[in-house]
């Protein structure tokens, strides 16, 4: 059994917690830095990336999150979480955590009225995943060994690099827990490797 944390500063953390529990594992809402020690993997939920970053800085989460990733513990970022993970953000000199080698564009599909849902093929996960995109970013380019897991049209919308997983869409808004199960599997493997 793995214990998965969900960063609970802002956004759709409740849905991720339900998804983790639906997969039969323990979920912990992370509001304080110290809580990170108790979890084997972490979800960065969807929400507003600008807001989350402000709160990450204000509560001294920044270094702790980078160290969490560098210690080899898996992190799964959805939407805003994908932006937080990226090493480069289009039209922005700064990045956030910079843990995954990829360049992302924010609000890349347009404003809310362009938000959409569509079926996706996700490599190693599903060939019919109903993906919900909300003011979503996409990945412009992946670098080094970052692997593309899914594309919509010619846009990269899911990627994986080692123990990092990121999607531009919101698996937590559907009852399809296959992507969460895939992440939990990554967490279980990292636990075995660190023993």
């Amino acid at each position: 059994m793995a214990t998965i944390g969900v960063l609970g500063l802002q956004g759709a953390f409740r849905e991720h917690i339900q998804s983790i529990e639906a997969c039969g594992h323990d979920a912990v809402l992370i509001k304080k830095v110290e809580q990170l020690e108790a979890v084997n993997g972490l979800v960065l939920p969807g929400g507003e990336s600008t807001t989350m970053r402000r709160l990450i800085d204000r509560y001294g989460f920044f270094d702790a999150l980078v160290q969490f990733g560098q210690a080899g513990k898996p992190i799964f970022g959805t939407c805003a979480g994908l932006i937080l993970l990226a090493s480069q953000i289009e039209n922005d000199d700064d990045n956030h955590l910079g843990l995954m080698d990829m360049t992302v564009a924010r609000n890349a599909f347009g404003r809310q009225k362009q938000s959409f849902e569509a079926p996706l093929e996700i490599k190693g996960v599903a060939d019919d995943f109903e993906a919900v995109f909300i003011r979503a970013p996409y990945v412009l380019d992946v670098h080094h060994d970052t692997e593309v897991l899914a594309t919509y049209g010619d846009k990269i919308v899911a990627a994986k690099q080692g123990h990092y997983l990121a999607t531009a869409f919101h698996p937590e808004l559907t009852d399809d827990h296959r992507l969460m199960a895939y992440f939990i599997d990554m967490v279980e493997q990292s636990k075995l490797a660190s023993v």
Partner: protein
Amino acid sequence: MSNVGTDRVKRGMAEMQKGGVIMDVVNAEQAKIAEEAGAVAVMALERVPSDIRAAGGVARMADPTVTEEVLNAVSIPVMAKARIGHIVEARVLEAMGADYIDESEVLTPADDIYHIDKNDYTVPFVCGCRNLGEALRRIGEGASMLRTKGEPGTGNIVEAVRHMREVQTQIRYVQNMAKDELMVYAKETGAPYELLLQVQEEGRLPVVNFAAGGIATPSDAALMMELGADGVFVGSGIFKSNNPEKFARSIVEATTHYQDYELIAKLSKDLGTAMPGLETSTLEGNDRMQDRSE
């Protein structure tokens, strides 16, 4: 094949705002202050509610120049208000690219009987509510997010508290009802029966419910979260205080950590003067914005 404007996409947008603060702004400069402070969205307006109160007369959708200026100033979502029942103001805001429309009693209603059929739009709507019946009627019309009405522009939290408590109490009440009682309750409250059934099964509203209408301090924001709000709207409370940057930041932090009372004490120190308050019992007739629609 992709689908825009589905319930999941419209309601999901509000899910992403949870735990956050949405701030009223009247220009690009205020929008940037709000974004910098950590707001999850801004509401673009020509005047904040307390100024609408002071000005009197008919309050309408903001001049598109204001909305456009705010849309271009920030990367967080931008909401905008249309008058209740004003189908065209809402279409104009949708066409301009507003991310959410507030069909709002803060503006003078355009229709004193009917609300907009919000199912028909690609852009999502937020609406005000004072009780479960009103909340579920708005969802029935297609609202993707709710907020308590409170009493806007007063800096007085009492009405927001009343409305949040009323909704939460009624949800708990409904959870314990038999199916036959539920139909009578639907008749009494004017709530769609199917939505009442859903509330009974899930024990919560089918959409996100924020608090609004009277939040003036970090403690007010935390109080509303404590009472079950998913997040808060702050209208006049920020830019009518004497230190907007500080008020904005403190209200954001108090909303995130609404049960960390030492932190809220710290946030509340030397904040300066909050917006001037109004005793709601002195308001009569049309000055009670919450009574402008049902």
